């Protein structure tokens, strides 16, 4: 099948930056090949005639699932149980700039 658009290593670099996953040089090479294979397979859907069809974002037709505005006591112990690094009550994060 004709590959309309192949993923260059530059693009893979960019994608890995967007996804915040550092890739090794080796992974970049490997992924570049593998992902292009996969993408050329994905292009199968180009053939599908779906012009007038809406997308199915939600497979089951339900709407308006809403909860009433009642507050419950928070549960910080549950939420903080697995935090790797705390500083006092703060979650420690890397430097911003």
């Amino acid at each position, binding site marked *: 099948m004709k590959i309309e658009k192949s993923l260059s290593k530059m693009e893979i670099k960019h994608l890995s930056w967007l996804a915040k996953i550092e890739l090794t040089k080796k992974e970049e090479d490997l992924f570049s090949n593998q992902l292009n294979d996969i993408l050329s397979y994905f292009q199968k859907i180009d053939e599908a005639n779906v012009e007038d069809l809406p997308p199915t974002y*939600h497979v089951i037709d339900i709407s308006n699932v*809403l909860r009433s505005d009642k507050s419950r006591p*928070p549960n910080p112990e*549950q939420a903080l149980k697995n935090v790797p690094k705390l500083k006092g009550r*703060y979650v420690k*994060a890397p430097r911003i700039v």
Partner: protein
Amino acid sequence: MGNIKIGLEVHSQLTNLNSKLFCSCPTDYRGKEANSYICTVCMGIPGTLPVLNKKAVEDAILIALSLNSKISDKMYFFRKNYFYPDMPKNFQISQYDKAGGITLATGGYVSIPNKKVRIRRIQIEEDPARITYEGTIYKSKSSLVDYNRAGIALLEIVTEPDMESPKEARIFLQKLSSILEHLDVCHSYLEGSMRCDANISMEGGKRVEIKNISSFKEVERALNFEMTRQRNLLIKGISTKMETRHWDEIRRVTISLRIKEEEEEYRYFPEPDLVPTIITKEWVETIKDKMPELPDAHKERLIKKYELSPQNADVLVNYKLLGDFFEKCAEIYYKPGAISNWLVGDLLGYLHEKGIQLQEMKISPVHITKMLKMVDNGIISGKIAKTVLEEMIISGKMPEIIVKEKGLIRIHSDELIEQLTNKVFEENKEAVNDALEDEKAMHYLIGQVMKLTKGRADPELTNKVVRDKLIEHKKLLEKKN
């Protein structure tokens, strides 16, 4: 100089909700210990799922209605994907008007003097966490995250670039915040409850975005700075480039963020964990029925009912809390004009001067009306009343108590005032001579008498005594000559 176009993206918390947008955590996190108002949902703990707060949607609809916007009959939530340490899930549940997305509302406007600022769209989203630093952002080796704010319901109101000066932007924001205050859905006096991004472009330059503006005062400052910066560039023949800049509140400058082509790649897609919300006409109608009086109608009513000046009415509407306070005073005491002057002038002025928020002042309408009665009954002078007012605001004591404690009651005694006047005449002989020619010098003498009584001397009486004394003095002089 070329035309300026300013557009705003206002982020307003729905502060009157009891619970967060997608979980049941309470919303009154301000002043609470870090990471104490959180649960597994707003912390983004794996496996947890969001459930939409109905009241948040209703408050948002109410706001959209008040801004004359068109409410969508169906809306979706989309994920806005980007990484940042304040993001519990590294995506924000928000709304989107492209890629098949529909936001809560579109269109609408806010009227400000001489124009309508058009609204582009209104959407609901979740607030991120708050980051603090050890020291400054630049020097801090690490950052500290407090998730208490994470998941608070936020409304994003995006305007068209219809404002033509930083001042106009401020006026728009004042009006918007007054509207939200009237709706009782967002109290902008709560720290960080209303934040703003601004974009500004000048004829001949590209659009520049300014992020991270934390309050309205800062918006005008940031825009003024940016306007001057761009103008200087244009004068030098350099055209501004399209970029995002950060407002540094401390240094009061905008700083260019690293320009990254990737910056805007948010990879929006529909939030699979939430279902569409259908907004029926009936639902909108029931919300519309609850629509309270809005600023324009409020102002008109104040003017009509209480015969206030448009200026005073404007201030009372802009400061809705003060407006409510005024009406309570006006119910108790029959002089709305005087009340409004006191509130808009001395009271508000003093609060601004001292940096006190309206809701922090310790007085009730009765304080004000009692004070006014004391003035009208001649118990204290207007000048003394000002002192009393300031004292009331700080301590919350009733005016009669303050007057008693500080001995501020007006001096009506002819004898005492005559004594004091004699003393002043003795000590200011030159001024006395001048006063025979010059009215101003006479007022100086009156002022000296007032000063000796710490303002308590009855002004009319003092006036009379000083005048009489001067005439006497004149006669004496004529006799001598």
